[in-house]
């Protein structure tokens, strides 16, 4: 088959060295992006004014629950960028999100329920969306670089990761520690950016 032989010759003729991808290295890049963003939030004065060493439990929930989801979703997406991987594991992310909501609801015993505060809530969703952009962009670049067996599922995991990172940074920014506010608006702060990012990330993941 001369055409195939010509193709092989052409591919072999243009062969710059490549660095094998490592999911662990890419995970480090994502953590670096997250760390830089967190520092910028602090340096630019975007953090809540009462931020200090002793904070109420709901503050830590608003920070830790989405951060845990972000870490797991990021690892899930990056691990699945290998064409030899036949599974992605998106279901685990749903289970973790439910568990995090359960923990948050349990905090109703020690934290004021507060009110929904729609004005602040909407501002929180907008802020989370903005905060989710850098990690989502970084994930998009990494998805483009990979070769997933299931691009749409990987994109869902990456979209959840972007939304979760944004919501984790929102935890540094939002001053409302009411249970109702956190459970509703911070969950929206994950879900809405994730929905918005799912389609472009799916396109980025296809190859």
């Amino acid at each position, binding site marked *: 088959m001369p055409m195939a032989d010509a*193709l092989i010759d052409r*591919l072999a003729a243009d062969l710059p060295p490549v660095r*094998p991808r490592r999911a662990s290295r890419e995970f480090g890049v994502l953590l670096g992006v997250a760390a830089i963003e967190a520092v910028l939030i602090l340096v630019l004065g975007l953090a809540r004014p009462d931020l200090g060493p002793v904070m109420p439990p709901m503050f830590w929930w608003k920070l830790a629950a989405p951060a845990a989801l972000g870490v797991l979703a990021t690892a899930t997406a990056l691990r699945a960028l290998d064409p030899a991987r036949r*599974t992605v594991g998106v279901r685990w992310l749903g289970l973790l999100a439910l568990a995090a909501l359960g923990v948050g609801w349990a905090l109703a015993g020690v934290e004021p329920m507060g009110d929904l505060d729609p004005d602040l809530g909407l501002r929180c969703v907008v802020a989370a969306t903005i905060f989710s952009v850098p990690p989502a962009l970084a994930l998009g670049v990494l998805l483009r670089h990979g070769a997933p067996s299931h691009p749409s599922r990987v994109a869902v995991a990456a979209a959840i990761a972007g939304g979760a990172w944004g919501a984790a940074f929102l935890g540094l920014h939002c001053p409302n520690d009411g249970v109702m506010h956190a459970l509703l608006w911070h969950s929206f702060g994950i879900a809405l950016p994730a929905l918005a990012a799912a389609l472009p990330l799916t396109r980025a993941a296809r190859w």
Partner: protein
Amino acid sequence: MEDKRQWGALMAAAQGGDARAYRGLLGELRPWLLGYYRRRLPPAQVEDAVQDALIAIHDKRHTYDPARPFAAWASGIARYKWIDRLRSSARAPDGAAPIEFAVEGHESAVTSATVLTAMLATLKPQQAEVIRLVKLMGFSIEEASARTGQSESLVKVNIHRGLAKLATAANDDKEGERADG
């Protein structure tokens, strides 16, 4: 013929820029890919699929981890490109060229027919029937409509949905074949 255990070493060398090792690897992969796609695609699509897979292997060669089996990696790429073609078939206009399965080798033809029969059995009878008529036997939409009693629109819808379901089934097949390595 080829020693698949060395493919990983050849790809690792290619990642370092060794063009000779890479040419040797692609030359050995080509017949393996031909066999892979002959069992899954009509003859007219096999060579294109092989070339697509070779280009994908080239573009994504940085995703191969030399510490892991090469065969599973190459098989994952070949499988992804196969599913891509199934999806394209599902999206293609209904008047697209009919699917004719391999007759070059008896074993290959039997394998293709067996796989195809098993896959069609997972569809609704109306879907399987029109896919057989239009995509395998070469009947037109009008002829398939006349033979089955389905309206022309329904024939098109059943072909589209049936092919989409086949693509999904192939995509979800976690037991999909890996390379022999």
